[in-house]
């Protein structure tokens, strides 16, 4: 597209963001269905996390085993406790207690303190409402399931997962070296940048597994589904264990998202984001290598 005349920065950014990139500068990395399902998945994760935290607030305790309620011992809790110095937010992890007033357990909503596990700026909806949080959660859970199935079926059929994501034997051997590269924040260039590195592959496989576990532990909390698949209760060790695993997997997905975003920033955000929008990926060149020209 010609950008003649008004060469303002916006037009240039628009042009450079969407301009097609062809060999040998780059290649078509992400196919349309992978790109589409990636962004739908990102939206689902955002809504599921936000509404999940609102649901959690209805009973901000986690237990292990078949049952657990007030009177049973939680291994994790976000409570508001009355103290001589006034109410405090207390985060409990096993035997440890932390004062988290203002953020976890006891935080401000519309300028007034309230007993709330997670604060209003993290939950969907922002106000405490279990019924509506569940509505959002199930809406996006269904979208996540169909979107995830579309991705999995397509990626297995097109051999994207087998070819690009499953680590090879050579990959496994290269794990120590890949760890070192990551520690040094060194990103592959030239030919090596055409493939995912082994830690990247393991991270993608990991997050696919985590999302599958989220769906399964979520279904294990459903009394209707329990009647159909009671053995899932045994797999996860009971409904309360399933609820806790659901929460732990969600935390690990948050960790994945943080690392994922940091890596996008480090590897070159425009190139990385463009490749997930148009599919085209520019191969980073090694500026330290001898210029062949």
């Amino acid at each position, binding site marked *: *597209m010609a950008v003649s005349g008004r060469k303002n920065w916006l037009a240039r950014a628009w042009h450079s963001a*969407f301009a097609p990139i062809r060999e040998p500068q780059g290649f078509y990395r992400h196919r349309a269905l992978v790109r589409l399902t990636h*962004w739908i998945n990102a*939206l689902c994760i*955002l*809504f599921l996390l*936000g509404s999940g935290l609102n*649901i*959690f607030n*209805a*009973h901000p*305790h986690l*237990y292990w085993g*078949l*049952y*657990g*309620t*007030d*009177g*049973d011992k939680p291994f994790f809790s976000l409570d508001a406790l009355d103290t001589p110095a006034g109410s405090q937010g207390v985060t409990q992890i096993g035997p440890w207690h932390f004062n988290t007033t203002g953020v976890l357990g006891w935080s401000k909503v519309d300028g007034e303190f309230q007993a709330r596990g997670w604060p209003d700026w993290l939950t*969907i*909806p*922002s*106000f*405490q*409402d*279990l*019924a*509506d949080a*569940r*509505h*959002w959660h*199930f*809406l996006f859970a*269904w979208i996540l399931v169909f979107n995830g199935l579309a991705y999995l079926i397509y990626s297995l059929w097109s051999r994207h997962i087998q070819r690009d994501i499953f680590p090879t034997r050579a990959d496994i051997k290269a794990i120590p070296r890949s760890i070192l590269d990551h520690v040094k924040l060194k990103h592959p260039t030239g030919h090596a940048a055409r493939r995912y590195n082994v830690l990247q592959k393991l991270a993608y496989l990991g997050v696919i597994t985590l999302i599958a576990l989220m769906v399964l532990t979520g*279904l294990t*909390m*459903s*009394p*209707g*589904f*329990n*009647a*159909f698949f*009671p053995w899932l*209760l045994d797999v996860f060790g*009971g*409904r*309360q264990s399933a*609820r806790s695993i659901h929460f732990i997997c969600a935390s690990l997905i948050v960790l994945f998202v943080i690392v994922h975003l940091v890596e996008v920033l480090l590897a070159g955000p425009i190139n990385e984001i463009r490749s997930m*929008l*148009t599919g085209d990926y520019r191969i980073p060149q090694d500026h330290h290598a001898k210029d062949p020209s």
Partner: protein
Amino acid sequence: MANAKIITRRVAILGGFAGAGWLVANTDKLTLDSGFARVFHAVEDWTKTAQRGLLFPDRLAREYSPSDISPFFKPNGTYNPGTPEYNAHAMQNFDDWRLKIDGLVAKPLSLSVAELRRLPRRTQITKHDCVEGWTAIGMWTGVPVGPLLKAAGLQPGARYAVFHCADNLTGEPSKGGEQSPGQYYESIDLRDALHPQTILAYGFNGKQLDVPHGAPLRLRVERQLGYKQAKYVERIQIVDSFANIAGGQGGYWEDRGYEWYAGI
């Protein structure tokens, strides 16, 4: 031509992100929007259809062994209806408490708790899953609802069993304000009402059912969440629609935004 296609794609990408951004920015507004509630209702119907499809033929909820019973079974909602009539019944061991079965039945029934205790009973140790997220396991003894309804004779058009309760519940703060108080009630469809594990329990953990857990009669619908397990039941009304009962959504919590189908 190629340019037009590329521009269309760019518009689609930007439009998609603008739409997603608008959705994220307006979640609170959409949550309170009565039109958008139709989306949530459609999701609930879809969940119900999916689960009902899986649950054919009618599967039983898992039953546990006595060693799995939780040491503390949290009572929730009303702890004691506390009305003069209720207190008088409690003083007399609820012997004269009557369960009425009416509506779309051939022969309305009125049975005392003493009579119900003499009918064939079922005992089941099951998991109670609160919508809030907690779980307790308890042993329930009671009279199956199915044979009672058959004795009353279901009329053509009968679709739901509505369970009317003796307690008035104040509700929880929600949507930024207090919930309105109301008489507790619940409804299930006949498929659940006729399920063998659906009972009106009068015994709990080997003893007579106590007041905090719903004495003298409490519904157990084992494949649904805790708010379906109506306590202090005094009447079963068979209807073809619950649209004209209380808030019209089929239950106390349903009238306050919760799903009618509480299988998840």
